[in-house]
């Protein structure tokens, strides 16, 4: 596949270089580690630090979400690979303002090990760390094994709510509690239409027939639960929403936020057509959409397809979702 890059070996370095040069009053690289980026703004003493991270290739996830009301720092891995403990630790030290740091990341073997190691090292340096793993993807394990599910686009809601809580002055325990509550009330499911390819291999991440889709696809191109003939958007949206609602039943009158997330090469037009159906289903059930997000929030390079995420809201989560944010790739008034 064609890419506008230089040497595949240095894509992450060059992206980071461009990124910090494009947004110098938002973000900077720590001198200690070139994969450790923190907000360029001064954060309050006593504020809980919010650390996010994961593999590259998911932009705006994760580096795009460092800024006011969101994360204070990000550890950046290679494409689709967890960052090692070193940049996580450096970010931790830089953003700890005496109140501890919460790590927000997706439930992947690599991330669990690397963030876990970093947390141990941080604790050894006297920094309190709480870890909250996103595992919103209903397609990735049955309900009884929810702890094995991977985190996909729903992590946005975890970042958003925890970021707001930290900015509002909540303590570490409460920021972590809110992040966990957000995660526990969030479900996602995706569909893949076309693969992406790693710059280093140029090979498609999966194979699908010209008329096929992959239901439940992971956002690194991991196979989903089944291949099927590509259906009309309404039918696909129906299947995704049904799987979510089966996993997390919602009652009439309950309020949610909906995220239709593009995986990279799916036009907004198609995302809004998907949203349209999701809204219709929820409306018919008497469920109220409190806020909507439609766009590319956590991508997989140039993968085609999307995911639908629903988060069930209470008053506290609504406050956190409404809170303003100002990041290079995400601004909310």
């Amino acid at each position, binding site marked *: 596949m064609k890419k506008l890059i230089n040497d595949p*070996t240095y894509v992450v370095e060059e992206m980071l270089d461009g990124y910090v040069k494009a947004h110098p009053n938002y973000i900077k690289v720590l001198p200690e580690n070139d994969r450790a980026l923190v907000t360029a703004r001064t954060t309050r003493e006593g504020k809980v630090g919010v650390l996010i991270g994961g593999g590259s290739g998911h932009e705006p996830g994760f580096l795009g979400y460092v800024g006011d009301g969101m994360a204070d720092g990000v550890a950046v891995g290679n494409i*689709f*690979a967890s960052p*090692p403990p070193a940049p996580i630790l450096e970010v931790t030290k830089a953003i700890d303002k005496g109140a501890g740091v919460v790590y927000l990341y997706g439930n992947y073997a*690599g991330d669990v*090990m690397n963030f876990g190691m970093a947390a141990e090292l941080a604790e050894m340096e006297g920094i309190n760390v709480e870890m909250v793993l996103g595992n919103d993807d209903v397609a990735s394990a049955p309900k009884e094994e929810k702890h094995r599910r991977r985190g996909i686009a729903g992590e946005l809601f975890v970042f958003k709510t925890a970021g707001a809580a930290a900015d509002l002055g909540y303590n570490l325990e409460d920021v972590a509690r809110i992040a966990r509550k957000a995660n526990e009330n969030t479900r996602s499911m995706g569909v893949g239409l076309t693969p992406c390819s790693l710059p280093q291999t140029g090979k498609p991440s999966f194979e699908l027939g010209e008329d096929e889709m992959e239901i439940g696809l992971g956002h*690194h191109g991991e196979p989903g639960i089944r291949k099927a003939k590509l259906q009309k958007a309404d039918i696909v949206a129906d299947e995704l929403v049904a799987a979510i609602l089966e996993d997390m039943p919602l009652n009439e009158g309950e309020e949610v936020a909906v995220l239709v997330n593009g995986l990279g090469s799916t036009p907004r037009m198609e995302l809004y057509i998907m949203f349209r159906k999701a809204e219709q289903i929820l409306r018919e059930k008497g469920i109220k959409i409190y806020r909507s997000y439609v766009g590319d929030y956590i991508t997989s390079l140039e993968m085609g397809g999307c995911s639908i995420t629903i988060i069930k809201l209470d008053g506290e989560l609504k406050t956190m979702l409404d809170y303003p944010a100002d990041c290079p790739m995400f601004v909310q008034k």
Partner: protein
Amino acid sequence: MKITAAEFIEYFKSVAEMIEREKDYLCELDRKLGDGDHGVTMSIGWQAVNQKLNNELADEKDCGKISSTIGMTFLNAVGSSVGPLYATGFLRGGKAVAQKSELTDQDLVEFWIAFINGVKDRGQAKAGDKTMIDTLEPALIALQDNAEASQNFTNAFNEAVIEAERGMKSTIELVSKIGRSSRLGDRSIGVQDPGATSAYFILSAFLKFVKEL
């Protein structure tokens, strides 16, 4: 047999070469089971290691230091799942041969046992989960069993590699229980685990290396 620090370094360089050759194959396996990057990740890691071997470690005489530096270099270059796994392996292996400038048969047995136990401790996977442990665990057992019996490291390691290969191949028929591919369920059957495959390359490269000494 005795392996000098310089020879130890040569071995690791040969792993880097081997991984570079097998990179595409490893990605191919991971595309079917996971996110398709295993070859790339191993390559990034071992190229970083190779760089270290040619520079900072070029004249290093402490085999323990060589191994632990490799572990940290690999980890910092890749993160990922294999970063912490192999880093822990090489750190533990390094501890087992700390401050030795030459490695005896006994040292080598201890190195590999500590290495494999390190990987196991970090990942908490069991044989049968369809991971690199399916390669490493049988090798560990064979090595322990044969090291004393045969009194000859090369023979014992030869047995270990035979078992490792058997273990690697057994992953073809396994349903993945851990890591990225575990969400595939039955769809994971029929493909050899990439991590089990690269782990086999690391062991078999060592056998080739000691045979050619």
